Structures are given as C-alpha cells and as structure tokens.
C-alpha cells in the first residue's frame, strides 16, 4: 500500500446523503476476481443512462472535475454492503481522499486498508467545500501529519483521526505483516483457549 502524507488535488462534489455501496459499485461488477479495474464502474447507474451514455448532470461526468482526486459527499457515505469493491472503485477512478460529515463503519475501515483517507468534517464545513467546488479548478491540500485540509482562499479544516489508522496511512503498512510480528501472542492465546 502506498503511503499518504500530503495530497493536493482537484475537488469533486457529490451532494447526496446516505450514498450506499450498491450505488458506488453495483452488484453486476462484483463478479471479477481481481482487485483492479473497478474504476470504470464507479457510480455506474448514476454516471451512465440505460444505453451506457454519460448522464451530463452527474458531477463525475463534468469536464471541470476530470482528474479530481478529492471526493466530497453528504453524511453516512458508504453505507450498506461490506463490499471492498467500493473503495477499490473509488481509488481506481483516481480518488485518494474523501471528505464527508460521516461514514459507515465498514466502508471507513476498508478505506484505511487501501490507503484512502476518509476525512470527517462538520456538515457546515462540507457544505462550504461543496459550494467552493462549484467553481472551476478548485483544489484542496491535505496534510495528514498535521490533520488539516486547506485551500488558497483561507479555508482551513482541522480533522480528527485515530492514531492507528493515521500511522497505517502515513506508512502504507502491510497490516498482516505487522500482525505476524505478534505471532507468539496468537500462539499463546490458542494454547490457553485450546484451539487446535
């Protein structure tokens, strides 16, 4: 996993609440057995009509958000199914950072495992960013070490993140590798609890 320390990128607003993972990546695309290539199906039925043509009013189809790498959305983003294909699609499409008032637990966890920073900001802050992102070329800079997001117009959002996911993201750790350094402890637990 790639470390994420600072990131500067174009902001794309998605002004919807309770965006579920069925919308992020519809079920017909869950049959692949690879981790890659899901970006083309991101928000598939919101991005494309029944004939496969892009819907012009959907932000991800707007030319001014081409190459956006920061997604801003409404509360409870990523609710529903645990499918990790959702963050895979978000990432494969080019997003490295998400900003929303709240996230579903499993989705947020899945983001960390893939090096995506899911920032929690207040509803007012998210609204302010959404409005600014209406203008062409609006970018934000994220500094994970300092836990702050800012633009060149004086907007500054401090955010909270627990120490463990922060370290995971900053260092791009392979979590299984870390856990296996505790193998003795796992062996001991199994011995005491009579696991085979």
């Amino acid at each position: 996993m790639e470390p994420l320390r600072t990131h500067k990128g174009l902001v794309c607003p998605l002004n919807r609440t309770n965006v579920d993972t069925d919308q992020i990546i519809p079920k017909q695309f869950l049959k692949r057995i690879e981790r890659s290539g899901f970006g083309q199906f991101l928000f598939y039925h919101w991005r494309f009509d029944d004939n496969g043509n892009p819907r012009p009013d959907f932000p991800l189809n707007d030319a001014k958000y081409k190459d956006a790498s920061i997604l801003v959305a409404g509360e409870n983003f990523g609710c529903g199914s645990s499918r990790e294909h959702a963050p895979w699609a978000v990432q494969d499409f080019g997003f490295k950072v998400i900003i929303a008032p709240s996230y579903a637990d499993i989705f947020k966890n899945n983001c960390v495992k893939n090096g995506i920073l899911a920032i929690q900001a207040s509803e007012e802050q998210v609204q302010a960013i959404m409005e600014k992102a209406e203008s062409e070329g609006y970018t934000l800079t994220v500094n994970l070490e300092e836990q702050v997001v800012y633009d060149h117009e004086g907007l500054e959002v401090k955010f909270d993140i627990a120490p463990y996911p922060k370290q995971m993201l900053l260092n791009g750790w392979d979590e299984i590798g870390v856990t296996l350094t505790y193998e003795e402890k796992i062996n001991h637990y199994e011995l005491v609890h009579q696991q085979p």
Partner: protein
Amino acid sequence: MQTPKTIIQKIWEQHVVQHEQGKPDLLYIDLHLVHEVTSPQAFEGLRMNGRTVRQPNLTFATMDHNVPTRERHIIKDQVSKTQMDTLKHNCQEFGITLADIHHPDNGIVHVIGPELGLTQPGKTIVCGDSHTSTHGAFGALAFGIGTSEVEHVLATQTLWQAPPKTLNVKVNGELGTGVTAKDLILAIIGKYGVQFGTGYVMEYTGTAIRALSMEERMTVCNMSIEAGARAGLITPDETTFEYLRGRRHVPQGEAFEEAVAKWRELATDEGATYDAVVEIEAAEVEPQVTWGTNPGMCIPITANVPSPTEAVKTSKKDEITRALEYMGLEAGQPISSVKIDHVFIGSCTNSRLSDLRKAAEVIRGRKVSHAVTAIVVPGSFSIKLAAEKEGLDVVFKDAGFEWREAGCSMCLAMNDDILSPGDRCASTSNRNFEGRQGNGARTHLVSPEMAAAAAVAGHFVDVRQFTAQEVG
C-alpha cells in the same frame, strides 16, 4: 466487587490477544465464514505473499450470492461460474471445508451457520458480508468485514479492532397480533434512522425481544447493519440453548450442558451501563412497508407516503424528492394503494422455515394476483427439504408462487433472478437501495406475511385485516 459488564464487553475481553494503550485491540476470531464474492482477492493476496490459512478448521465456506435458483447446476453466466470455481479451487488449495452447490449443507451463509450449530454464544464471528450481524441473535459478536480483513483473518485468525461503543436497544411490552420481528426492526430503523448505530455494537433487550423465537431474533439482528451498527446481539437464554441442542457442530451430551453453563455467564450484568440507550414500545409497532430507497424510509401500512415538505434540512428534502422520483410515488398517497408486480420471499433476513410457514398460512387457499409474479427462495437446501416435507411447496405452488432452489437470489440479484427497470417488488429482504434488485427496479421491504398478502391482493394490504377475511 467487579464492575458490571455488558455481554459485548465480556465477549470482547475474552478474545483480546494483544492490548496496548492508544491502539486497537488484536481480537481473536472463533469462526470465519467465507463466500464466493468477497474472498477471491483475499486468497490471491495470501498466494502472492506466500502465506497460508492459519486455522482452516475455524473457517467454513459456502456459495450463495451467485447461485442460480432454477437449475442450480447450470450456471449460464461465465463470470459467476469463474467466481464459484475460484472459491472451490481456493478451498481445496488452503484446506477449507466448502458446502458447494452440490452439497446438502449448502445455503445462504447466514442461514447455514446457525443451522449447522457453527454459530454459538460467546463466539467472535466474521464474514466478508455486512449481514454477518445475523449471528448476533445467539449472543455472538458477529460482524461484516471487507476483503482485506478477510485476508487478514485467513492469515492470522485475528483482527485489529477498536473497542466499540455499546448501545442498548430496549423493546418494551409485546408485539401485537400480525406484527412481526421484521416490522419491529424496520420500525426501529424508521424511528431512529439508518446511522444511529454507527460506531456501536447494539444489544437488543426487553420483554418483546425475549419473547422472540431464534429465527425471529435472527431477522432483527440481521438488519442491525441497516441502522449503521456492524453488530447487534441478544443475550442467549433457554430459547437459544434449545435451538442449538443436538445441532451438528455444538458440543453433545454432557459437554453441551457444560457449554450452556458457560453461555449463561455471558448475560449482561445487572447495573452494567451502555454508552447509549434507545427505547421503543412494541405495542405501538404496526406492519411496516418501506416507501423509499433506504431501510429508514419506512412507514406503517396504515400511513401515507411522506412529502419533502415534512423535512427540515435541505439535504433531507432532496433525499425524499429523489427517492419519490426513483420509486415512482406521489407524496401523500396511501402506501396501501401502491400496486406491485413482483413478490420475493427469501434472503438471509426472512427465508427460514418459520418465515415460509407464516407466508404459507396467509396464502393457503388463495391465489396470487394475475398481475404479480411471485417467487419463494428458501435460505438453504435443508430448509427447502423441511418445507417440502410439510407440504409448504404445494401451498405456494397451488397459490401461483414459483418454488425455487436456495440462495441469496433476488435480494441482490447477482444471479438470474433480476428485475427490469420500473418493476415494483414486495420483498422480504433487507435493502431497498436504488437498483438493488435490478437496475431501475423498485423495492419495498416487508415481512413474509405482508409480502404474501400483497401477492394475493396485487397491492400492499394490512395483513392484520387480510388474514381475518374469509378465503373467498
């Protein structure tokens, strides 16, 4: 004297492998359930890093999401077939027991775990599926995980988890006649929203919960995730123990009584406190129908579809407007006036024998409306057999239902059971998200009884009055 603890804290503490200040705990996992959709990339990860499965005998796999329900041996979709074949190869390579589509234990992962007695009180249970919360009905700490975590559990039999906050969902009194566990959980989500459980593990308590059967408890715990909670559980009691007695994977004879004695100790201590409490009066719950595009958008069968003007926040107004548009409904119309063209009875929420029995009671001697296509998909192969032994298949078929093979089926339409744009379905599943049952299809979540009544009437109908009527 020890501080009183909740069952959640007790199970947690029993499973901590490594605890360090400022870090999540390393939690031991007692049971890992695996299915074909969320596991291929995890096994591939193991292979790429030269890792093995640490505890193959704490791991159990099934095929459910892609399984056809007509001729289950003929998988027309090659991509589905590849995914199922991949699971088979992975289970062979890593030494994991698999109930494939030809196996008598096959069924929906959250149906067969309890059926086989793999699900037990006090266990930590995970699966790459958000409805793993179902197993909480037994007093297990069970939650859904992503594929990276699936790989982590396969390799280490552990997970890094921050201790959750605890939420007591207290249901007082008793449910009225014709009101089901499905109505109860929908009403709870309707009242408190789709994210009140986020960050929490819920414990369902109160007299109405105690009165539920195991299968009804599974329906309630199943939908904890629709309230945002990764896990929801119920303290085990006599109902739990009697359900488990004699099942294949539980201890037998003397050992079972010893296990029960241990399980009893899991009960939340008197005086234990939760981080939050919500309460609901069971008697106030009516049969529910969802009108919108998330499970929180639900109303009693006696009510009218809401209007955007009822919302205060702009984002809520927009959400209601969008949902009405997608669902093709008018604000203010009675939900009972909504006509349907499909009925789906099945899913890990409502596909167990008691669900099928109750639905069969409603339709016995009646006919499915000519405008409706109705299917029943039992949760497992063994439920299908048991139902056939009682003649339920005949009741359904006589009424005009299609009687299918087991699987996840139209809950998420990954197999051939998929609706067309504009189709409207009364469904006993758990999610009414846009496109869940097919692109452009409209899902209304209901109980099996309500689904059966709607199948006959051709529109939503209050099952309490419906069953009182004579069969005509």
